[in-house]
């Protein structure tokens, strides 16, 4: 606060000295204890600093055996335990323009009234010729002060399966719920604990669920948690409060880690526009994919008819890399399809990977 002010319009020193003088006698009372009382979480089962805790409700935290977290402080509204999505997305600005991968204080600070929302990555399962794969969407959610709360919200969206794109789905049995999330440290070595509950025993593979479907369901949660936190934390799972070694029959002990993106993520992926978006008559499509020879093909369909098509190249071939292209279209409802031309001449026999988005072009 003492750096010299080097702006061209150097302010009058009088104003600066008046403001400094006006508060020169302000000596706040010591408050570190008061702050610490409100940020302290007391673990019952571990001496590690369980710094963050969240659950759908305070009651749910209490039932989360093994990661019970007590939060001290006299004002329940100000404790770092999330009390659920009490503040829905509101009229606050939603700053879609900001890069959601790189949260900054600017696009995240709240005014204390809980009205802000942030774009949070949520992974869903979609089908590709090679089998089920993960696709990411950004969902607007209330901006949570506590990371674990933000993770819990994102995981609920992932599990509940309400993707923007109807081609995607949750890999989880209906009635699965995320009852709590705890993040037990700052570094990529520290574990994110996710507590799940369901009507069936979630440790077991439901009959009829394929192996890769179960794997993708687990990876959905690992990718989503890591996506929100922007760190590759291992993810540990509990079912009804008990740590589990398997989830849907997939080994997750001691913790699950993110699978190889080439094996887990969709190989063609439209990032923007998202499904259901309105776009201008000239719009840019961005995505990523792993393409043979980096060739990306696209089609714009109206009522099932191709009205425009083209191709571009991804930055690299055979690995997940970004692509973008520009489309111009008359106002109307369209389906945008991005796909890899089947260069194998059908040898794989399973069609080409694709991603589609419904978009509305407006003036």
């Amino acid at each position, binding site marked *: *606060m*003492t*750096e010299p*002010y*080097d*702006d061209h*319009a150097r*302010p*009058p020193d*009088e*104003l*600066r000295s*008046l*403001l*400094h*003088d*006006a*508060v*020169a*006698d*302000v*000596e*706040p*009372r010591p*408050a*570190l204890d*008061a*702050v*610490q009382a*409100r*940020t*302290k979480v007391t673990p019952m089962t571990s001496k590690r*600093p369980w*710094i*963050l805790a969240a659950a759908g409700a305070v009651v749910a935290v209490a039932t989360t055996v093994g990661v019970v977290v007590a939060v001290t402080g006299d004002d329940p509204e*100000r404790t*770092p335990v999330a009390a659920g999505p009490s503040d829905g997305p509101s009229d606050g*600005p939603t700053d879609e323009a900001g890069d959601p991968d790189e*949260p*900054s*204080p*600017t696009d*995240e*600070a*709240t*005014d*204390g*009234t809980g009205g802000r929302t942030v774009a949070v990555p949520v992974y869903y399962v979609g089908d590709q010729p090679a089998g089920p794969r993960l696709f990411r969407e950004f969902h607007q959610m209330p901006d949570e*002060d*506590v*990371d674990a709360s933000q993770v819990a919200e994102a995981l609920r969206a992932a599990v509940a399966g309400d993707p923007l794109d109807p081609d995607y789905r949750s890999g989880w049995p209906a009635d699965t719920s995320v009852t709590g999330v705890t*993040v037990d*440290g*700052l*570094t990529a070595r520290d574990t994110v604990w996710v507590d799940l509950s369901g009507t069936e025993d979630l440790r077991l593979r439901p009959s009829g669920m394929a192996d890769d479907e179960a794997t993708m369901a687990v990876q959905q949660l690992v990718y989503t948690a890591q996506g929100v*936190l*922007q*760190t590759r934390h291992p993810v540990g799972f509990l079912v009804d409060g008990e740590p589990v070694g398997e989830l849907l029959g997939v080994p997750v002990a001691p913790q699950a880690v993110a699978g190889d993106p080439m094996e887990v993520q969709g190989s063609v992926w439209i990032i923007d526009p998202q499904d259901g978006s309105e776009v201008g008559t000239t719009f840019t499509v961005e995505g990523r994919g792993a393409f043979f020879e980096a060739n990306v093909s696209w089609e714009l369909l109206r009522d099932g008819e191709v009205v425009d098509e083209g191709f571009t190249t991804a930055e690299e071939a055979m690995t997940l890399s970004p692509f973008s292209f520009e489309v111009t279209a008359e106002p109307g409802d369209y389906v945008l399809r991005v796909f890899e031309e089947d260069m194998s001449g059908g040898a794989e026999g399973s069609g080409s990977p694709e991603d589609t988005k419904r978009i509305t072009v407006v003036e």
Partner: protein
Amino acid sequence: MTAADFSAGTTERWDPDEAVERLYATHYRGLVRLAVLLVRDQETAEEVVQDSFVAMHGRWRRLREPDKALAYLRQAVVNRSRSVLRHRGVESRHAPTLAIGSVAPDQVAERLRRTHVLDALQTLPRRQREVLVLRYYLDLDEASIAATLGISRGAVKSHASRGAAALRPLLENPHD
């Protein structure tokens, strides 16, 4: 802060509790003073800053660096001050002047002068007050003010010049 302070490793290793402790030690008083300039009342200002520290604690994982944390704290203080004023409502917007009965006579003039400045700030439109305080009290540059308030640099300029113009009478004759 010297290199020795980082001997345990990089600041990324600070846990949230440590971040609160260190930033409190360095910046609590300054942030309360900032909030007093914005909300006038010291008790309210202390609450606003404490709330901001609690929020920063929950956000430390994404901030990680003291500079970013300080920027976040400033922004939280401005936003929460704004929210407090909104809730406080019109009636008490002109806060009672500071009690001066117990002040030694030679300090009365000083106290009056300070009260006068704080009162004058409260009469400004919110944005003008915020811009002036960030500029002249925190010495933030235009870009930082724009980022903190989420407004354009052009808006910072115009709020600053209008706010300064509104305060000019006070500057010229602060003892009135």
